[in-house]
Each structure stands twice: as C-alpha cells, then as structure tokens.
C-alpha cells in the first residue's frame, strides 16, 4: 500500500481577525503550507469547515479558496463533520493520496466566527447538536458539555478545581506559541474566578470563539523525493480512524464514555501498529476541560474515570509522561471550529520535526483527536517522524 507523508504545514495566528475574511485566512494558511513544502501547485484541495454558511453566508468553499489561491481547475470540496471537520478533511486528503487517485493534496481548515453576534455564534455552534431534541430546548453547546461535566464530577468525585488544571496546562504551553490566541499563563484561581457560562462550566473551562486557518500538504514518500522536499520535513500519517456516536447526548449508552473516540483510536492505533504507551504527545480536543479528561480515557492514556487524575498528578505537562496540548490546545491556542483539526495536525508536524516552540523531547509519535458535536463525530490521527 502507498504511504502518506506531510511535506508542508502552515497556519495563521488564531484570534479576532477583524481585518481579514474567511478567504484571506484560508489563502494565507494554504500558501504558507505550499511555501513550506516548496511547491506551487497541487492536485486537489480539501477544506475543513463547519459553519461558514450561517457565519459568513458563504458555502462552496472548495471553489472559493482554490480560486483565490490561484490553484487552477482542480477538484476542491468542503468536508463537514462539526468541530471535527478539520481532522476529517486531513483524513480525506490522506485517503485521496493512499488511493492513488491524487499525488499531491492540499488540506486547509478555516473558520471565521467573529463576524457574528455572540448569541448567534452560540446558536450556530449548536447546529452540531440535535436541532429538534437539543437546540429546540435552548441547549447551547456549552450547556451540553456542562451536563457532562457535572455528571463526571459527581460520578468520580472530582472538583471544579481538578478540571481547571487542564486549562492551566493549556495556557502554560500556549504562552510559548506565537500563533496562539492567549499567550499568557493562568492559575487555577483564574479559572475558578471566571464567571459561569453554564454551571458548573466556567468561561475559562471553555475555548474561545475566534478566527483562523491552518493547512498541510500531503503526498507519498516517492513524490516527496521527486519534488525535492528535504526528508527532515516529512512526517508520516501512520494511522487514522473516525467514528460517530449518537448525535444527542440523551441517547448515549454511557454519558461518560467517548465511544466514538474509542473506536476511532482503536482503528488508528491498529493502522499505525502502535499502542497508547507509544504515543509521545496527545493533542486532544479540549474545547471544554471535561472533554480533555474524557478524551485521555477514551484514547487509552488513562483508565475510565482517571483522566482528571492524570492532570492532578502532573502527568500532562510537556516533560511528563502524557504531554497534551503542547501548543496551547483549543483552550489557549484557540478553537476556530472547522480549522482546529488542521491546527492540531500542523502542531503535530512541528513537534515531530523538532520545531515546536515548546518541544516534547525526542518526540517520535504523536496523536491528534478532534471531536465534533458533544462526542458525536470524532477523528483520531497518528503521526510518526520519518
């Protein structure tokens, strides 16, 4: 079977980009990735995006971005899987390369969220929930995660302070990342003193509404050689998996198991031929602190109910056994929803090339996990240093 390697990675800083539109951000990230690979054309483009329609009244992102990036008459489409759109777009790009149909593929994840009023943004994000049985009742995305958070704390005896440690860790790493939205460390008290958005979930338990775009270029090792891309730049896409769970939280078999992450991870581990203990760093989807805990459990880094224990024991820091959110995670780097999975990929590439601003020593294998919905659509990718 063919192998897939990432040969170029680029991104824009995450933030409130008042002066830039969706197309500006996407084109900038895409050209950064192409320049990084040293190429000027690609065979196709996959765009990870969740809700450009409601946010900026723009769909048909494949045509928009390929056109404005000057890529010619290539095939280009948008991939949507709620907040996991970016991770899913990377997977579609890899699949195109592995299938042999396309040799050099560009993936760009983009989301422009700050052009909407906050309460409308809250509504659009809830489109990833079940419209008739969740949003109908006024459920926001934060509220659904708050229901999980309270149940998790009650079931395993954790406190708001315990979960705040995930935010503290994310900010500590994000402080060193020039592309992060929040470049300052915080304390547990910062989280605890922040206002409740949906009790017991506070503002600092949640990732911000923001804008950003990230991009990677995928090809085969043979083609990479032909294009003259130096081997130090290659990062292998070793494994990938994707799975869904019930779209509504109430229908879940177990509220505290991210079944979709578990299934996706099993597939990704099997394809890569690795186990959780082989992973040097985990980029998990910490859109809310409780999701970081549940993700560590679903990915096999912690036993069920012990995800938050890893944070309490100091095991999630850069130099510990299970480093997570090495460049700030969704919490501090920012979470431009449909772009997040591609940002995670770019960050994994930087770690594995040894170019990350907060480097995990000797990182060889990294994992990214991207959650759509309240755990309803999840992608897991495993990357390896070539």
């Amino acid at each position, binding site marked *: 079977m063919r192998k897939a390697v990432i040969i170029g990675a680029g991104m824009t800083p995450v933030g409130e980009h008042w002066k830039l539109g969706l197309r500006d951000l996407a084109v900038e990230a895409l050209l950064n990735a192409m320049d990084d690979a040293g190429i000027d054309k690609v065979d196709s483009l996959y765009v990870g995006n969740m809700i450009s329609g409601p946010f900026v009244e723009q769909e048909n992102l494949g045509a928009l971005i390929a056109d404005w990036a000057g890529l010619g008459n290539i095939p280009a489409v948008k991939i949507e899987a709620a907040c996991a759109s970016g991770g899913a777009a990377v997977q579609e790009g890899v699949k195109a390369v592995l299938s042999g149909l396309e040799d050099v593929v560009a993936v760009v994840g983009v989301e422009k969220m700050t052009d909407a009023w906050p309460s409308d943004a809250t509504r659009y994000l809830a489109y990833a929930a079940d419209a008739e*049985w969740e949003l109908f009742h006024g459920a*926001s995305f934060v*509220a659904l995660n708050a*229901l999980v958070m309270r149940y998790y704390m*009650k079931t395993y005896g954790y406190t708001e302070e315990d979960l705040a440690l995930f935010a503290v860790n994310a900010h500590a790493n994000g402080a060193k990342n020039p592309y992060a939205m929040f470049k300052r460390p915080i304390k547990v008290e910062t989280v605890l003193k922040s206002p409740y958005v949906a009790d017991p979930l506070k503002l600092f338990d949640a990732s911000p509404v923001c804008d950003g775009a990230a991009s990677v270029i995928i090809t085969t090792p043979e083609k990479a050689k032909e294009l003259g891309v130096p081997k130090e730049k290659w990062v292998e896409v070793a494994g990938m998996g994707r799975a869904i769970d019930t779209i509504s939280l109430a229908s879940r078999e177990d509220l505290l198991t991210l079944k979709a992450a578990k299934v996706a991870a099993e597939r990704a581990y099997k394809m890569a031929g690795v186990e959780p203990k082989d992973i040097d760093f985990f980029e998990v989807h910490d859109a809310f602190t409780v999701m970081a805990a549940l993700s560590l459990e679903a990915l096999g880094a912690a036993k069920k109910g012990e995800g938050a224990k890893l944070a309490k024991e100091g095991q999630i820091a850069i130099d510990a056994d299970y480093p997570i959110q090495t460049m700030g995670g969704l919490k501090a780097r920012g979470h431009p929803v449909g772009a997040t999975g591609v940002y995670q990929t770019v960050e994994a590439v930087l770690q594995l090339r040894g170019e990350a601003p907060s480097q995990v020593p000797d990182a060889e294998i990294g994992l990214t996990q991207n959650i759509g919905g309240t755990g309803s659509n999840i992608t897991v990718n495993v990357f390896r240093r070539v």
Partner: protein
Amino acid sequence: MARPMQVSRYWRHFREKYMLIGGKCENGHVHFPKRSICPVCGSRNVEEIELSGKGKVISWTIVRNPPSGFEYYKPFPLALIELEEGPIVLAQLTDVDPEEIDFGMEVEVVTKKIREFEEDGIILYGYKFRPPVK
C-alpha cells in the same frame, strides 16, 4: 437569523413534544424520541409508547448564555432526566428554585411555552419538567 418553516417543522413532532410518545421495539427496548429503528438492537419492529413523564434528574446546568432566540428566558435550568421507563430526556426544568435542583430529584412532565418567534408569530410549546405537584 435564518428561519426554517417553523409551522410544519414543529407540527411534525407534535406527538412527541405534547404527549411524550416514544418507541418500544419487539425486544422491549424503550427509547425517546421514537425512531423507526431501535437504537439498541436494530429491530425495525417498533411500536409507539406513551411515556409516563415521571423521572429523576441525573445532571443539570443553568444556561446563562443561551443560543439566540432564548435570551428572554435566561438564566434557565436545563437537565438530563431519566424517565421511569428508562430513556433519558433533555429538557428545561421549570417551577423550581435553581438552588433546590439536585441529583436524583424527582420530576414530572408539564407542557409549557418553549419559545416565541417575533417575526412570524409562532409560539412553540413542548415538554418541560418540574418537581411533582402534590
């Protein structure tokens, strides 16, 4: 804000939202809302079942920054309620002091206004849950 055809969209779910109609498959699995395929065993032999509307709170939150359209009601309590027949339902709690909400609190269904639309004038009703009226 974009508005789908609220009338047809709402009346499609009249039975579930007014009468709490769920589904029960040939193997006895009960779910809500009713589906044509049992989410547990995959059976397509599913009958309608009217749920009692009695249940207990298994988790809850206070929504302080709701999606647009619900600003008027904020803050409001939203909960996951386990019905006595087994299914879990997401709904707002009503007629309750937020301080009194607790794990395992008994609640019963009640039909209430969910939301008003300013432009087309539609008022949506549906189920909410409250502490049992003695």
